[in-house]
């Protein structure tokens, strides 16, 4: 699935090496506007590394990332925010000493006008900006259903609410590309449906790239999936196709597993169950490697 003209995001041959370890190896795919693309793969496959490349934290050794026709790979992270790329972090990553609404306001700040000298010379203007940002932040919090938590600090909030605040912070930037790193992890079952609705709602205005281990949820939310294993794309396509792909099963269960064979015959359902178990196992391990 190479870069094509219909994509808002083109990832082309991205390779990242950490010393001797190749974390990403010639990864290419494209994301269309208003598409939800899921990124899956076993623990350590390079999913978070890929998100780090997309948001500018890591510069790839080779390859290019183009967003809306502009090359992102050479820009510093703060410029990407201005161009409309936002992301959430694995875990939560909120500012501990700021209230929820202030956290979200920082997310909206890339569109605030007051810079260094205006901030010094024109404090009133900076104050007006502050009120506008606050209104926008409250709106974003309402959208994710966390408005009641606006004046609380992250440490006082339950995990699920903190995730909603983090999502609101990313949304407040009005992104055209939203990168979600494990948005469903740690959420209760009844919260997952709400999150899926929210993702669909966001997809009306933006393209999304989602990394998540919760396979059922990904199948229901994503328009297409890209499967990474040891830094390489081993499969991509619609959730159905990917689910049926023997290479995917092999990656999750081990290359020499018999599950790869049984996947073709009578055992399609059985295959799916086996995969889910393995995926959940990988999800538990992933909680250790926080940002």
């Amino acid at each position, binding site marked *: 699935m190479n870069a094509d003209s219909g994509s808002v995001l083109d990832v082309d041959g991205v390779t990242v090496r950490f010393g001797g370890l190749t974390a990403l190896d010639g990864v290419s795919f494209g994301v269309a506007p208003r598409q939800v693309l899921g990124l899956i793969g076993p623990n350590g496959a390079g999913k978070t590394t890929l998100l780090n490349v997309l948001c500018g934290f890591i510069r790839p050794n080779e390859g290019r990332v183009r967003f809306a026709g502009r090359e992102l790979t050479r820009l510093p992270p703060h410029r990407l925010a201005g161009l409309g790329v936002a992301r959430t*972090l694995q875990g939560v990553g909120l*500012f501990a000493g700021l209230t929820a609404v202030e956290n979200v306001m*920082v997310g909206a700040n890339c569109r605030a006008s007051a810079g260094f000298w205006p*901030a*010094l010379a024109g404090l009133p203007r900076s104050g007006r900006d502050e009120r506008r*940002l606050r209104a926008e932040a409250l709106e974003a919090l309402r959208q994710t259903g966390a408005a009641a938590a606006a004046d609380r600090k992250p440490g006082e909030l339950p995990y699920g609410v903190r995730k909603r605040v983090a999502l609101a912070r990313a949304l407040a930037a009005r992104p055209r590309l939203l990168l979600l790193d494990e948005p469903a992890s740690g959420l209760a079952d009844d919260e997952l449906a709400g999150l899926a609705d929210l993702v669909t709602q966001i997809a009306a205005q933006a393209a999304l790239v989602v990394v998540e281990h919760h396979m059922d949820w990904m199948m229901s939310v994503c328009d297409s999936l890209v499967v990474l294993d040891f830094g390489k794309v081993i499969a991509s396509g619609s959730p159905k196709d990917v689910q049926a792909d023997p290479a995917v099963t092999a990656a999750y269960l081990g290359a020499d597993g018999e599950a790869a064979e049984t996947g073709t015959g009578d055992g399609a359902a059985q295959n799916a169950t086996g995969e889910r178990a393995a995926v959940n196992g990988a999800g538990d391990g992933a909680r250790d490697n926080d940002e």
Partner: protein
Amino acid sequence: MLEFLQFTLSGISFGAVYAAVALSLVLIWRGTRILNFAQGAMAMFTTYIALEVIRGTGSYWAGFAVALAAGLVFGALAEVTVIRPVEGKPPLNAVIVTIGLLVLVEGLAGIIYGGQYRSFPAAFTVTGLRAGRSPLGISWFDVFTVLAVLAAAAALAAGFRYTTAGLRLRATAFDARIARLLGVRVGRVLTLGWALAGLLGALAGLLISPSTFLYPNSMDSIFVFGFTAAVIGGLDSPAGAVAGGLILGVLLSYAGGYLGSELTPLAGLVILALVLTFRPDGLFAGVRLRRV
């Protein structure tokens, strides 16, 4: 009893100056995790500039304003030129750079203005105030000192709380990497923090120099006391810095008044050692949220 009141009031006046220095150190510490050893020296230099302007124009307030502006500019310049390269490097690099800056600025002051003690004017009369017939041990200038520092601290707190620049400063202090991800231009935020710190330092220099005289090392002991005040307040808390300054000022005033003024510096070091030993996170550190 009157003596106690006098020591307390003059302690608050000196403490306000330590609070201003402490606040400037905390501003820099929160943004960059650097302790600026040159903070006092920079304040000494801006006070010399004030003295020149006062002599040239005859107006105290012209000198006052120019010194504050110079503090702002020096702070920003220091961050952009010598601090930027050591940000995010091992802490020792920044220690050496700011100590180097201290030596440079004090050396420059010696070359330009000479080493002799100069008297520096006060904004208001320094004759002692009286309640009825009893002297209070403070003057109108001391009242001005306390009010000026409290006003600066309040303005800073309001700026932090009610402006987008303040929001960016706070966000960067908590996590620069995430702030950058959200589109905050962290470099500019740090420059702003250093500029504001330079302004507070300049204010401290203007307020203390009428009582200490002005010479190239005149702010050294004020810097040490300001640092002690910042440590008492926990280094991370602007409110703690102000409280720490006032507490230290009063304690040192008691030490100087009851035990002898030659013991004041020693008392300062004893307090610093005690706080670092028993409450290294500051007197006001409560239950901290665990960092994850």
